[in-house]
């Protein structure tokens, strides 16, 4: 459980980091919190020749701009728990963060690290998909933005190209009155989720104007459920039958089983979590009504 030999670079600033990544291409990996990469290196599942330490780059702002939150790649998970912008605009994300690992992981892990690691049931990738976030990638050639739903290519696979680094994520803020909820279950607190479900409801006058949903554990990447979102749109909050929609979720997904969790169970679990998340988002919205 010792990594293979690698060269460690401490980047002074973003340009330096991008130059190092450009120079070493596929052989280089940025490292910040190291919560996933270091264990994978110790198990020799990841074998980078070069590590580019990006801890000195800053990139840790959370700012509001043009109806969106711009969150720096280096923002550590525990920051969300006390950030007023997150509390106001991304309540589902705030809930999801509580489910990320353990305090040490939340203290060290970063947004960029979590998204680029792309664990199939990780919380922050699910939140990026839920909110239709745009992911900003930088390289010496410039910057590009990728929609979250195109960013995740499979389990532990993303659209990040050699020489590129995730620098920030743009989360569009839900518009008008809104509520959000996130439900997850693992065997133990802090475990990888067996399934998860997140929802955002934008509503006006007791009617859902627009809804977004995300489902973790159904596929190798987080997925939106457009059928459920369409069913929610135009519904009254009071008339929302969350349990029935949860059952509908069950009908829309076909998750895989593994040696710990049967496919049948995972499917029912996600449906149940969907019902609970929808119920809570509805209740929160109703309670906030004047």
């Amino acid at each position: 459980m010792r990594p293979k030999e690698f060269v460690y670079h401490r980047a002074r600033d973003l340009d330096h980091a991008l130059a190092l990544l450009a120079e070493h291409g596929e052989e280089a990996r940025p490292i910040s919190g190291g919560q996933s990469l270091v264990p994978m290196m110790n198990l020799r599942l990841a074998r980078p020749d070069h590590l580019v330490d990006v801890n000195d780059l800053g990139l840790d702002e959370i700012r509001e701009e043009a109806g969106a939150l711009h969150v720096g790649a280096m923002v550590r998970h525990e920051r969300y728990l006390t950030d007023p912008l997150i509390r106001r605009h991304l309540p589902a994300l705030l809930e999801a963060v509580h489910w990320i690992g353990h305090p040490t992981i939340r203290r060290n892990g970063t947004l960029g690290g979590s998204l680029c690691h792309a664990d199939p049931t990780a919380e922050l990738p699910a939140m990026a998909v839920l909110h239709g976030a745009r992911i900003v990638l930088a390289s010496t050639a410039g910057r590009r933005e990728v929609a979250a739903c195109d960013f995740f290519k499979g389990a532990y696979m993303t659209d990040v190209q050699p020489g590129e680094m995730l620098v920030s994520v743009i989360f569009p803020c839900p518009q008008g009155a809104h509520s959000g909820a996130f439900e997850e279950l693992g065997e133990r607190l802090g475990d990888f989720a067996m399934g998860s479900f997140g929802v955002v409801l934008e509503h006006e006058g007791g009617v859902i104007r627009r809804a977004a949903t995300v489902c973790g554990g159904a596929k190798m990447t987080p997925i939106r459920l457009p059928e459920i979102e369409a069913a929610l749109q135009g519904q009254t909050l009071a008339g929302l039958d969350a349990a029935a929609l949860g059952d509908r979720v069950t009908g829309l997904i076909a998750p895989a089983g593994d040696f710990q969790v049967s496919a049948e169970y995972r499917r029912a679990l996600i449906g149940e979590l969907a019902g609970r998340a929808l119920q809570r988002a509805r209740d929160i919205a109703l309670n906030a009504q004047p």
Partner: protein
Amino acid sequence: MKAETPRQIGARVLRLEDPRLLSGRARYIDDIRPANCLHLKFVRAQVAHARLLDVDTSMLADLEPAVTVFTGKDIGKLSMKSHQDYPEMQYAEQPLLAQGRVRFVGEPIAAVLAEDAYLAEDAAEMVFADFDFLDPVTTMEQALDPAVQPLFDHWKNNTWVERQMKGGDLQAARAAAAHVIRRTYTNQRHTGVPMEGRGVVAEYDPGQRFLTVWSSTQMPHLVRTYIAEELGLPESRIRVIAPDVGGGFGVKGQVFGEEVLVAWCAIQTGRPVKWIEDRRENLMASIHARDHRHTLEAYVSAEGRLLGLKADITVDIGAYSTYPFSAAGESGMAAKVMPGPYDFQAYEATFRSLATNKCPNGTYRGVARPSAVFSQERLMDDIAREIGMDPIAFRLKNIIRTFPYRNVLGFSYDPGSYVESLEKTRELLAPDFARASATAGDPNRRIGVGIACFIEQTAHGTPDFTRRRVPIETGYIAARLEVMTDGHVLIDLGLQNHGQGLETTMAQVASDALGITPDRIYVRHGDTSAPYSVGTWGSRGGPLGGGAVHLAATEIAGKMRAIAAHLLQAPVGSVQLGDNKAFVSDQPDRFVDLAYVARSALRNVDRLPEGMAPGLAAEASVDGPKDGSYSNAVHAAVVDIDLRTGKLKLLRYVVVEDCGTILNPLVVDGQVRGGVVQGIGSALWEHFVYDAEGQPLTTSFADYLMPQAPEIPMIEVHHFETPTSLTPLGAKGLGEGGAIGPPAAIANAVTHALDIGVTGTPLTASVLWHLAKTAREGG
């Protein structure tokens, strides 16, 4: 002056070792850093079953001399041999490095030694084995199939051993029965996982021809004897030291091939050699445990009396027989203890140990008893359900009430508090039964209450091991005490303390006998410099080790009283010891410091009575009674199950236990709670899973799920104290009991909650959801 020292035995003394352990001053195996040390990395088999045609180390040639490698070709006949002397048993050895065949993923194939641990790991990746693949044996069914090729060329099938135990007239019991209840129960493969894995450091001094071995072990003397015999060295020139050991749980209560091989490598290379097990090795190739399947058939009278029991016990032992408890130990223990705390006199057990291409199965806290108690106590609930009795009432009807009790196999149980513990538990749980009733029929959520009532044979000694014919052979524990010139005491204890609190409890025991306060008593342990003993395991340290310390201390106390009587010019009979002084009863002014007494015994011997020999040292040993001494306990779990997600929450966990004389209540409670947490892991999560190719799927803590604090409820511990006459202090063993009850208690609680008989563990959310679904659908 009255004896001012409060009685130490039974007092809530904070652990004397904790300041060291909690402030980072402990020295574990990886802290042993000899100069000029070579680091060893094992190349381990990545396939479960194959003929080993060749091990290619040619790529390491470029790295020499910085890297040295040994393979099976280099080690001659060095092997692990652990044979239980049963005529039916098939014999097999494990070469220290594989020769001819590999039999499980993780079996050592080569040892790579390098100047640093990183280089060793890089070099190990450059060793390649050439295999001719064989079909792996990965299930009990395959192991029992006569068409499947045996794991060893000279074997006739894949059964290590199959034997029977019986007592009484089972035919008559069956004939008299109004109910015959037959069930099959299983416990999954899992193990004790210490925070610190294994590790060995060895150094050979060619001038003295002296070998020093440090190992994270529970049994230094047995390691020494095995190394001496296998390497042909005089035992007088070997010292084995267990430094601070970061958890053992019985898993480090075996002699491992790695221990012998690292010592051999140190002699071969003339350099100190160090091997520190990593977590992946620990989970796939250290030692596994449990993996039982029991089919039980109970014969019950119309009035609800248990008349007889038939048991068919199968254990998957894996690829090799571990030393010293052997491949027959686990299944034999299950057969032996299955009758439990119940009064019936007809029993017949068939037990067998199977060989499969999996990690060897060895001892883990409880040793077979968690599985036996799981089956026994699940069966008691299933019988009660079937004949329509309350489970506790059914147990009370069948529980043993008179002592000593001679059980169906002839074992004698010393007195305990079986009935009292059950009644106390019933009283404690009354509100929980009410809570459970309130959720009966609830479509979303159920509360259930379950108990496990059991006894635990502790303080096993020589008679028990000779009867079982295991290589351990003996069971006494010895201690040597020495009072120094300043009145401080050194105890050289033949035990090894890896969490038992022995540095505290043994000081308490010595303190009461010597009148010397515990702060002046140093307990040295885990070192073959202490008198020969078989180590710490099997719930024996308190009753036997404590007994040995008590006897040796009592002998020294007698001599100190004689010296003090001479110095005080008082009759010996009037001299008492306490608070580091010897004083004359009822005359507080007439005293002498024990430091002065000690100095008189060792330095100023002119002050000794005429003809008395100098010195203040004594050695004693205590062996286990013929059938051991039986602790008893009732565990109770209250579970809350979310039927729609399968999520189980433990609302309450209660232990009512009796381990005889309590040496230190804090230590007893700590031992019980630690054991219960491990037992909760057994019940709910911990599982080594292999696929059909024999590949382990659970080789990191991401997949092998240990209990963690958020899921563990407050564990209430209540005590009865029935001292035994079979050990010097009245103490029975208690180290393992905590881990024995939880799988049964939790499974019974789930059975109660879901109204469906649970047949196995682990009870993960997925399993519970399916159980709830089956119950709902009337399955």
